[in-house]
C-alpha cells in the first residue's frame, strides 16, 4: 500500500489524494483529520485539477441539494493505490450518455429519471417483497448445501443481488446467466451495451410490469433507453452484494449487535440505516462542479471548481452522529448519505433496503451458529472503479 502523503502542487494550496488505508467498516483516520481541519479540504483530481473533498455532514448535504452544481465535466478524484481508469462513471462516450442519469443535469436528468420512479417507490418495493424473500430463501438453501468454510459473497450476496436486479428490471430469463457474468468483474462497456441491445430486442415482445417494459413504453429515444438501461444494469448490482457482505461482516464482528438483532428483529428497520451509515461503499460520490461562485457553510467554492462529497467522511461526522465509530443498530442513523442524497441520490434505495434486510435476516435466523473465519471487508483493499468505492471482498464463514 502506498504511504499516505500530501503532495503540495502550489505553495498556497496543499493538495491531497483519497487515502486507501481504511476498510469498509473502519474509515482511514485521515478523514477525521481532514474533517477537523475544515468542512472541505483540497483534493487532487486525476486531470490535474485542484478541487475539494467535502468532509463534514452539514456541507455534504448542502452541496448535494444545490442545483448550482453540475455533473460535468467528467473528472475523477485522485486516490492512493491503483492508477485510475480513463473511463468516467457510467459514461459510454457515445450518444448513450443522453440516458446516463449520473452524468446529466437539470431538465434532461429529471425527464429521464422520472420514467423509472414508479418502479422504485416505497410501495413498489413492498410489492417485490415476496419475490425477494423467495430469491433469498433459495440462495440460503444453496449456501447451506456448500461445504464450509464458504465465501458468503460469492455464494450468497452476489447471486441475491443479481437475481434482485433481474426481477425488478425485468431481464428475460434466457439472459440470466449472461447478465450475472457480464456485470460482475472484468468486462467492457462495449460488451455491456451489446448485451443490453440484445436484451431490449427480446424484451420489446415480452412487455410486462417491470422497469424495462416501462422504458420501452415511454417516448424516450433509443439512445436514452439504452443509456438509462446501462445505468440501471450496472448501478446497485455491485453495491447490494457489497452491502450484504459488509452488513454480515459488521454483525459477525460485533456479537452483541448480532444477538440484539436476533432477539428483536424489529431492530432491522432502523438498523438498516445504521448499516448504510457505517458501511457506506463510496469514499466519494461522483464529483460536482460549481457553475458559479458559491459560499456554502463558510466555504468558498469557485465557479468551475469540482467538489467530491465523501459519504464515508460525512457518515462519521460526530456533529451529526455522536460517537460515530460505534456500530449501534439502535441509534437513529436516518439522514446518512450512504445512498447519496439530492437529485442524484440512489433511485433504487427502497428496493435495496428490502433486499439487504431480507438477506441479513434470513441468514442470521437460518444459520444460528454462523461464525466468521476471515473477511476481506476487515482489511484495506483496492478500490473499485470508477470513483473510489470499496469492493465486496471475500467473507469466509463457517457453521457447525
Amino acid at each position, binding site marked *: 500500500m502506498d504511504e499516505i502523503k500530501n503532495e503540495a502542487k502550489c505553495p498556497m494550496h496543499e493538495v491531497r489524494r483519497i487515502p486507501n488505508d481504511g476498510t469498509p467498516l473502519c474509515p482511514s483516520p485521515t478523514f477525521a483529520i481532514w474533517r477537523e481541519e475544515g468542512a472541505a479540504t483540497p483534493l487532487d483530481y486525476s486531470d490535474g485539477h485542484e478541487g475539494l473533498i467535502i468532509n463534514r455532514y452539514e456541507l455534504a448535504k448542502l452541496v448535494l441539494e444545490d442545483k448550482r452544481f453540475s455533473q460535468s465535466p467528467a473528472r475523477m478524484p485522485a486516490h492512493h493505490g491503483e492508477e485510475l481508469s480513463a473511463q468516467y462513471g457510467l459514461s459510454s462516450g457515445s450518444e448513450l450518455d443522453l440516458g446516463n442519469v449520473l452524468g446529466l443535469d437539470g431538465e434532461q436528468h429529471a425527464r429521464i429519471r*422520472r420514467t423509472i*420512479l414508479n418502479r422504485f*417507490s416505497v*410501495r413498489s418495493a413492498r410489492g417485490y417483497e415476496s419475490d425477494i424473500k423467495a430469491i433469498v430463501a433459495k440462495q440460503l438453501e444453496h449456501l447451506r448445501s456448500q461445504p464450509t468454510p464458504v465465501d458468503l459473497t460469492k455464494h450468497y450476496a452476489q447471486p441475491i443481488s443479481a437475481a434482485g436486479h433481474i426481477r425488478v428490471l425485468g431481464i428475460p430469463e434466457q439472459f440470466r446467466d449472461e447478465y450475472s457474468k457480464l456485470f460482475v468483474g472484468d468486462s467492457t462497456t462495449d460488451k455491456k451495451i451489446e448485451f443490453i441491445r440484445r436484451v431490449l430486442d427480446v424484451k420489446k415482445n415480452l412487455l410486462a410490469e417491470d422497469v424495462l417494459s416501462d422504458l420501452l413504453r415511454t417516448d424516450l429515444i433509443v439512445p436514452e433507453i439504452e443509456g438509462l438501461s446501462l445505468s440501471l444494469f450496472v448501478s446497485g448490482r455491485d453495491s447490494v452484494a457489497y452491502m450484504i457482505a459488509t452488513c454480515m461482516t459488521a454483525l459477525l464482528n460485533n456479537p452483541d449487535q448480532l444477538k440484539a438483532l436476533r432477539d428483536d428483529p424489529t431492530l432491522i428497520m432502523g438498523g438498516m440505516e445504521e448499516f448504510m451509515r457505517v458501511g457506506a461503499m463510496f469514499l466519494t460520490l461522483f464529483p460536482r462542479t460549481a457553475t458559479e461562485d458559491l459560499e456554502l457553510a463558510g466555504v468558498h467554492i469557485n465557479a468551475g471548481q469540482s467538489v467530491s462529497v465523501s459519504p464515508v467522511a460525512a457518515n462519521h461526522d460526530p456533529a451529526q452522529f455522536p460517537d460515530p465509530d460505534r456500530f449501534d443498530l439502535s441509534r437513529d442513523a436516518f*439522514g446518512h448519505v450512504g445512498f447519496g442524497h*439530492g*437529485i442524484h*441520490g440512489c433511485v433504487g434505495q427502497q428496493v435495496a433496503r428490502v433486499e439487504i434486510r431480507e438477506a441479513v435476516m434470513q441468514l442470521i435466523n437460518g444459520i444460528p451458529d454462523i461464525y466468521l473465519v476471515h473477511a476481506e471487508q476487515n482489511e484495506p483493499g483496492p478500490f473499485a472503479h470508477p470513483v473510489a468505492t470499496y469492493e465486496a471482498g471475500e467473507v469466509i464463514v463457517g457453521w457447525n
Partner: protein
Amino acid sequence: MKIRVDREACIGAGQCALVAGSIFDQDDEGLVVLLDENPSDDFVAFARKAATLCPAKAIALDE
C-alpha cells in the same frame, strides 16, 4: 402544523413514505402524495423527519 408538498420538486426518493407512511405516499408516477396535511401531535415528529430527509426539499411545514 400544516404540511405542503411540491410535486414538481419531488424526485421520488421515498424517504417520506419510508419514515412517515401514514402522512406521505407515492403515486403511480412515484411522486409524493400527501395523505394527511394536518397530522396529529403524535405524528408531527415524523413529518418533521420526512421534511429533513427529503433530498429535493419538496416538503414544507408551516408551524
